[in-house]
């Protein structure tokens, strides 16, 4: 393909390597971050990504923008890749552009954005705006936010993928909304990714969508891994990690417990917890390394959470 960029080639070369970043400023020891393949290409991406809903929406506040830059730097230092955003998230895209500019690199990044407009003819225009906002082109993944005008957007995105204007395409939902329509799109359309809500307390996707993703060779991004935040806050405030968790697999924090549950599902490619804090980013990223629970242990984990 004539329009493969240097960045894409580097990513393909790096596929499968363990989280060593390409910018010396971000260089760190290999992190041991688990990587899973995108079924449609075989390219492997880190199982812990980063969401930006609320956390990166800080407007033009320079102090907070610099603080978020530190969070992104920590994410890359731990071998992170996917950052997910949307035009619906206020200034998050602009803040991401600012942070990438401050760090002086987009190399470790697997950029995931969304088209979010009722105007089905505005796909290319919105993607171009987002590229300009982030300072990134082409995006690695362009998704259709909450299936808004999905038929028109999908047709255009498929053309753009053919032309090399985006690398992967997908659709998103959250909180179990529109799963029937979501399932129809997964079953009938040619897409690389789906993004949906999946966590230890929101397991609706296990019934049909996750098996279908596996069957159709679609990568899965799990959003809301902490159920909007209260799940992990409540656990940290009130509960002790069960002793057996640390004995059975690498689990020393509630972030490990909740995130490993998600990314150990065979159909899930990555989870995208969001945070505005460097210490929380550290916790999140640790969860992508070490032993993962198997099916029996996952059920035990779910039963334990139900019992609390």
């Amino acid at each position, binding site marked *: 393909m004539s329009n493969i960029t240097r960045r894409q080639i580097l990513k393909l070369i790096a596929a499968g390597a363990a989280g060593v970043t390409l910018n010396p400023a971000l260089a760190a020891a290999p992190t041991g971050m688990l990587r899973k393949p995108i079924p449609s290409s075989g390219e492997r991406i880190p199982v812990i990504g980063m969401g930006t809903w609320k956390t990166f929406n800080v407007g033009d506040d320079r102090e907070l923008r610099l603080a978020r830059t530190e969070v992104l730097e920590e994410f890359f230092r731990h071998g992170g890749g996917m950052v997910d955003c949307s035009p619906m998230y206020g200034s998050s895209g602009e803040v991401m552009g600012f942070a990438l500019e401050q760090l002086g690199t987009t190399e470790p990044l697997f950029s995931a954005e969304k088209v979010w407009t009722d105007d089905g003819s505005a796909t290319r225009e919105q993607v171009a705006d987002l590229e300009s906002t982030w300072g990134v082109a082409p995006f690695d993944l362009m998704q259709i936010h909450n299936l808004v005008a999905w038929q028109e957007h999908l047709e255009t995105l498929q053309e753009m993928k053919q032309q090399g204007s985006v690398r992967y395409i997908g659709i998103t939902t959250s*909180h179990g909304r529109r799963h029937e329509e979501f399932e129809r799109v997964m079953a009938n359309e040619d897409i690389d990714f789906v993004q949906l809500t999946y966590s230890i307390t929101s397991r609706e996707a296990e019934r049909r969508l996750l098996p279908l993703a596996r069957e159709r060779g679609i990568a899965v991004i799990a959003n809301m891994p902490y159920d909007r935040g209260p799940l992990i806050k409540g656990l940290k405030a009130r509960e002790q990690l069960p002793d057996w968790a640390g004995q059975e697999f690498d689990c020393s924090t509630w972030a490990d417990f909740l995130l490993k549950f998600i990314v150990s599902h065979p159909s899930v490619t990555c989870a995208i917890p969001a945070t505005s804090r460097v210490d929380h980013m550290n916790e999140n990223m640790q969860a992508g390394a070490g032993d993962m629970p198997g099916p029996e242990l996952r059920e035990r984990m779910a039963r334990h959470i139900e019992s609390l």
Partner: protein
Amino acid sequence: MDDLSTYAVADFIPFTADVYFRLIERVSEAWWPLHLLTLGVGLAAAALAWSGRARIAGGLLAAALAWVGATFLVGKYAQLNWAGTWFGWAFVIAAALLVPLAFAESRSARRNRRISVPGLAGLALVVLGVPGYPFIAPLAGRGWAQAEVFGIHPDPTAVAALGIALLMLRGYRMWLAAVVPALWCLVSALTLQVLSAPWAQVLYAAVGVALLGMLWRGLADFGSGRV
């Protein structure tokens, strides 16, 4: 169509508490010492409304609403919330509407010197919105830097607008002038509730007091044959 029952109010608030309260603070810093002027404008508008000079009162209040809509909501808040532009334009439209409403009221030469329940409700809202509101942040432990001021921030401006509308307008004009400020108070109260700010209740109470005063005035006018 998505099932609305699957949404929480938090799903419509795309920012965190620290970011929102820093915005309040940064806007305050940016415009200081304009606060002294806007507080004076608020008090003058209330006094003029009380004395029946609705034209000037309406003009002053309209200027404050339009300024807050343009500078705070469109200029800053819209960076955090895509709906901020709509809210900002709603403030500007409310300001534009207020001018003819106040002029029409002025021609009827009504004065409001008699103490009444709607008048007291209007005064209470003006006291809360103009001299009272800056004290809420320090009383809530957030410090003076995050104090919200009439003519600079939308919440006190909307609360005072409800009070001034009650003092100077009647009938459909009063109701029309109150629509945008009341809606903003409810939107902001829901936002503050999501952000775990206890003074969200102040805004609910302000809307309740305004509604009570307006209904009282409407019934009184109906009973006296004014409507």
